[in-house]
């Protein structure tokens, strides 16, 4: 036994078990998130339930479980039709169900408002006449395309209108500036501006009129549906996101719908207070935030670490600073958030507003939360990580290389730039990866520095200066919190919460993977052989 112990087997097992346990936990987390997130998008069949009270229910059976209050079981159904029933999820006691069957003609309609509709197609109404003859399903598909074409036009006009809005806002701000400067009311620039404003207003009205006309056209294409109990609903064709007959589809067709739903996550805007639709603005906001954050924290951290490692020497003061930097990484992130709010937003932002945009006050321009301030706050939060890893990477370079360079008559700066930084670059990249991962997961500091539930515009668009760092933005981490804990319709939001989590993990993984690839390339280039 003693010999067995000394050979070290138990120690090996213990360490292996610890690793296995950790991996298992991580894997379980990912699997739970994947199962709950991705499973919800599979187009399930629509079951019709006849109850013993004569009522009928149609919906997707989500789960069955024992009732908590007696011995029976109950099932949860997603019944949709929020506009008809108010609630789109329902528990049904199983012993009240007389019959459960699947009707071939059952239709799932994903709508832009009120969520899914489950029922039957009864008529398609067109601008000219009601056409109930022939294959309704086919007519629906055809005419929906026609309606969508009009919708395209409406959207294009909408874009023009937003551009006009932008120009009008510009004029308004210029007028405010003139007011602030005390330019007299009859001055030439004012007249020009008034002129410009009028012209813009005219264009604006014309566009709005055109848009309204198209919208009216579009509203003439309507489909009529009935739920399982015969209650009718009219849905404008342009508002149908997707429609299919789940009880007739084979696995391949289901997979097609599933794929298109998943893809929608990446490019579409959210609907129904974020519980449906896509995540594009949040994905975009998250990535842009991390990117801008890196732009600040990376150079700052690397340069600071270079000073600490190469020039500062090793006195008690430097040791104090080093300890302080290490501990900086441990401060709760909400503290950084509050600092960001107080220092960046109210301090810096407020000052910028007073200096450069005084005419717009009290409406803040930079003196309110926005991408810039959130990035700076996160940069502050992650800079210690960059400093620590960079310093470690620099100190890991063998002294001989440093001396070799100096002995050839290079200055310390030349040695730094030509030899040390390239050699430390894999380590520096590690710091960048760690800081990006940390920043991607932060929510608390963002909530008070500029993240919003629904941003009206992306921080990057076609309007000069293209990157609008003063704008508020959406973020996946906040999205999770908001949908999971602030949503009035928890059941409907649940799959989105999981899938958003999955996406956030995915984004961190992709960014890390890219950085790790880069690091390995550098490693190969700068460190192998005998040192």
């Amino acid at each position, binding site marked *: 036994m003693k010999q067995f112990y000394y050979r070290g087997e138990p120690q090996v097992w213990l360490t292996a078990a610890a690793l296995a346990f950790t991996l298992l936990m991580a894997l379980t987390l990912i699997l739970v998130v994947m199962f709950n997130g991705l499973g919800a998008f599979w187009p399930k069949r629509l079951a019709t339930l006849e109850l013993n009270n004569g009522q009928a229910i149609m919906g997707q059976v989500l789960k069955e479980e024992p009732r908590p209050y007696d011995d029976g079981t109950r099932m949860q159904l997603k019944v949709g039709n929020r506009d008809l029933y108010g609630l789109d999820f329902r528990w049904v006691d199983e012993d009240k169900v007389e019959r459960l069957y699947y009707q071939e003609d059952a239709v799932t309609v994903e709508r832009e408002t009120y969520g899914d509709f489950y029922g039957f197609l009864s008529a398609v109404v067109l601008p000219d006449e009601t056409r109930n003859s022939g294959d309704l399903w086919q007519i629906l598909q055809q005419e929906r395309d026609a309606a969508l074409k009009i919708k395209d036009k409406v959207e294009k006009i909408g874009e023009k209108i937003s551009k006009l809005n932008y120009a009008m806002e510009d004029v308004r701000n210029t007028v405010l500036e003139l007011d602030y400067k005390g330019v007299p009311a009859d001055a030439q620039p004012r007249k020009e501006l008034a002129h410009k404003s009028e012209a813009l207003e005219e264009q604006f009205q014309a566009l709005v009129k055109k848009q309204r006309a198209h919208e009216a056209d579009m509203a003439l294409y309507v489909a009529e549906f009935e739920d399982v109990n015969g209650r009718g609903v009219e849905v404008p064709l342009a508002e149908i996101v997707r429609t299919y007959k789940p009880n007739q589809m084979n696995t391949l067709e289901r997979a097609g719908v599933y794929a298109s739903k998943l893809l929608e996550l990446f490019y579409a805007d959210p609907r129904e207070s974020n519980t449906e639709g896509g995540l594009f603005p949040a994905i975009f906001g998250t990535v842009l935030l991390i990117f801008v954050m890196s732009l600040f924290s990376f150079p700052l951290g690397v340069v600071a670490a270079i000073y600490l490692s190469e020039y500062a*020497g*090793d006195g008690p003061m430097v040791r104090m600073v080093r300890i302080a930097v290490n501990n900086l990484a441990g401060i709760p992130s909400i503290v950084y958030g509050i600092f960001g709010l107080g220092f960046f937003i109210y301090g810096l932002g407020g000052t910028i507003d007073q200096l450069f945009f005084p005419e717009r006050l009290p409406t803040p321009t930079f003196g309110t939360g926005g991408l810039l301030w959130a990035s700076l706050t996160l940069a502050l939060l992650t800079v210690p990580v960059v400093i620590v890893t960079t310093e470690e990477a620099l100190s890991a370079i*063998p002294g*001989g*290389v440093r*001396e*070799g*360079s*100096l*002995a*050839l*008559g*290079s*200055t310390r700066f*030349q040695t730094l730039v*030509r*030899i040390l930084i*390239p*050699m430390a670059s894999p380590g520096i990249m590690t710091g960048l990866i760690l800081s990006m991962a940390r920043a991607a997961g932060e929510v608390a500091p963002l909530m008070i520095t500029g993240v919003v539930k629904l941003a009206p515009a992306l921080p990057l668009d076609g309007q000069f200066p293209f990157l609008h760092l003063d704008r508020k933005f959406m973020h996946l981490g906040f999205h999770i919190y908001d949908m999971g804990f602030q949503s009035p319709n928890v059941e409907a939001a649940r799959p989105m919460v999981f899938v958003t989590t999955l996406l956030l993990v995915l984004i961190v993984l992709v960014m890390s993977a890219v950085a790790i690839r880069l690091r390995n390339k550098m490693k190969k*280039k*700068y*460190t*192998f*052989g*005998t*040192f």
Partner: protein
Amino acid sequence: MSSALKAHDVDPQTDPALADPVIEVENLDFYYGEAQALFDLSMLFPRRQVTALIGPSGCGKSTFLRCLTRMNDMVDISRMEGSIRLDGTEVNSGELDVIELRRKVGMVFQKSNPFPKSIYENVVYGLRIAGINDKDVLDETVESSLKGAALWDEVKDRLHESALGMSGGQMQRLCIARAIAVNPEVILMDEPCSALDPKSTARVEEMIKDLREKYTIIIVTHNMQQAARVSDYTAFLYEGVLVEFGKTSKLFVKPQNQQTEDYITGRFG
């Protein structure tokens, strides 16, 4: 100057090589913090000759070598007193341009330290940092330096591959090529062969003999045979004190000092 030599069996009157030394060291003391590492060292290094520094570990050979090109500057607690003159210019002076000094005095270390760059870029590193980027000049320097370090034939086809893929002996010769690329006056070698196999050692020694025609070489070595083989002059250091300095042919055959004799015959050290 004569005081530097009076204790030793060398005489500029009879030995013309000593009349025009490239480095003169006078009363050099060196301290690491409180500990003194070199005691009142005085000697000179004859031009275009190989001088070997021998002595047991910790006797201050490497420290002395590093003093010559002010490599100890980077050790915060070090202190140097006395005089080192390179071609008459005081080395131990705050006004000296250390960069300029290090261009004139190259150094090769015990452990080869190629940079993580290509072979070509390693050789031209000294030129590039001096601002020389003319491709013709660089190409020419690479060829002549690598030839000087007897490495050209082995690497001429892979000049742009990483230097880190070379063998240990090749790396050390690359470091020598890198040192001679800037065309220094003096090359300091700190036990250049201690990590090399006998074959590589022989090549490096061969090369040192060739380099003597153009450069002054100062080599620290633990290997008595090597000192005897490659050097013209030998200095024996013991506990920070220069015990004996003389022509290698004399010092190894008929040492003046008992300590020297004991050391070179292997009785201690």
